[in-house]
């Protein structure tokens, strides 16, 4: 008895140790990255850094135009991908039966698309938007390429969210003589809003952090963009360029990365708040 008990206790303690170690290692990795960025970049962070133009290939100056380009690329991508993606998700979840071959084909191709490496999207965007549609290296072309990349994420999160809404809502709404459209906009989409927000967040995060897809589409030019047809350098490309191609650019690369990570964290918090708020309003409204 006693030995069995001690074996159990020993096993429990070992399991506990393993679990804590794993969790600790994950946290440690995050802390390490963050502290590296803070140590290397915090000294260069200032208001001027955020608004100035880069000088000397980015070794000096700031990232003003780069932030603007990043914002514009993101805006183009979301404006193209959100309506298209969410409409497709509604079609998939609400208008096509779950086991139809068309629905299956669309879902399958979305899974495949989600696995395509971003550099491939970059090459496709370059061939299609930049060259075939003659947009050149431009924010528009980069944004549209990103939109293609975001579609699978936006569609599958929204699709899953809508599908998770219990069928009983659809039945009882129909039993009250409510139209499909009203049911969709007043009940189903609000009920799925946390998923929509999650998809939006994931998508935005992915778009802000994307490098490879933009290399050949929105380009490197670090001037302030004058229009959507100008080339613009996004933050992640700036970091990539500074650390790979510019000797002595490390400090600014760290500072830029710190800005990027902070932006992503803020985005995260904002999206969570938004989702929680929606849910509250939807219930109490």
């Amino acid at each position, binding site marked *: 008895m006693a030995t069995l008990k001690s074996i159990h206790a020993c096993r429990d303690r070992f399991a506990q140790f393993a679990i804590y170690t794993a969790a600790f290692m994950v946290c440690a990795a995050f802390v390490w990255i963050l502290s590296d960025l803070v140590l290397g970049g915090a000294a260069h962070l200032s208001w001027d850094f955020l608004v100035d133009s880069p000088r000397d290939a980015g070794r000096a100056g700031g990232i003003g135009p780069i932030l603007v380009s990043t914002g514009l690329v993101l805006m183009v991508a979301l404006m193209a991908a959100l309506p298209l993606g969410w409409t497709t998700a509604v079609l998939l979840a609400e208008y096509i*039966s779950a086991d139809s071959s068309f629905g299956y084909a669309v879902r399958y191709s979305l899974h495949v698309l989600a696995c395509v490496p971003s550099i491939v999207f970059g090459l496709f965007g370059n061939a299609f938007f930049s060259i075939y549609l003659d947009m050149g290296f431009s924010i528009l072309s980069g944004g549209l390429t990103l939109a293609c990349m975001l579609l699978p994420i936006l569609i599958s999160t929204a699709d899953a969210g809508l599908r998770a809404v219990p069928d009983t809502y659809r039945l009882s709404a129909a039993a*009250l003589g*409510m139209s499909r459209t009203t049911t969709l906009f007043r009940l189903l989409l609000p009920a799925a809003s946390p998923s929509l927000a999650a998809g939006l967040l994931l998508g935005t995060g992915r778009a802000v952090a994307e490098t490879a897809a933009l290399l050949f589409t929105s380009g490197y030019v670090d001037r302030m963009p004058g229009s959507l047809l100008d080339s613009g350098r996004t933050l992640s490309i700036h970091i990539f360029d500074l650390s790979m191609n510019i000797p002595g650019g490390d400090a600014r690369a760290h500072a830029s990365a710190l800005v990027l990570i902070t932006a992503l964290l803020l985005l995260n918090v904002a999206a969570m708040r938004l989702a929680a708020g929606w849910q509250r309003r939807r*219930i*109490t409204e």
Partner: protein
Amino acid sequence: MCPGPRQAMSEQKQMAGEDNIAYTLGPMQAGPICCDPQPLIQVEDLSLHYGAKAALDRVTLDIHRGCITALIGPSGCGKTSFLLSINRLTDLIPGCRITGRIRIDGRDIHDPLCDVQTLRRRIGMVFQKPIPFPLSIHRNIELPLHEHGITRRADTGPIIEQVLQDVGLWNEVHDRLHSPALRLSGGQQQRLCIARALALNPHILLMDEPCSALDPLASGIVEDLISRLSGRYTIVIVTHNLAQAGRIANYAAFFWTKGQAGQLVEFGRCRQIFESPSHELTAAYVNGVRG
């Protein structure tokens, strides 16, 4: 068209009066006296298939205006399917096919000219599990009203108060109309669902085991409510609680699965079904569950 609830009520009062023949077991709180049964829902040769599987086989049945008709029978014999085909919710179920004819007030509900939304507005439905929408109590009732063009606050306000009074919920919730409906108790949620259906001024109420997900106390409250509603509405209620069927229903229909599909075995006045069933299956079921 069928008279509205209030009109029906006054008709009822005229109809009642003389010979108080009770067709139901036990006391009826406020039921109509169905001495002059008029068919409101006429179901002829209704068969229903889910894909290749038959769920209902040639059901023919008249449901009378202003009466409560209880559907009884074991699980899986097609009672829910029968209800869903009356307001054409079966349209929403993929692979569900219907043959036969259902007429309400003489009009075929599968007529291409029949507007489904209007049809469903006139037929309230209450499901087994209460399904309040994840909205406020007030909004739960207001949303369907808006859908049917009743949008002015001056109109919706009194209707909402009236139906909440009707289901006895007003005193419990009038000071928190804007709090989430999901925070109500199960019995309150079910009564809210009934109120939501009543707000559209239906003439028929379909109830699919409305008390089975509730505790006995809440179930009793809902049962009282249903018997108060009889007369104003034509009610079709599915229940496994035979005592309940006996207390509130005027008519009973006994379904049974024969072969693969559910069939109507016997239909008649509630008392007759319970006390002198003409079919031996009915007798076995009624006595078996009782004893």
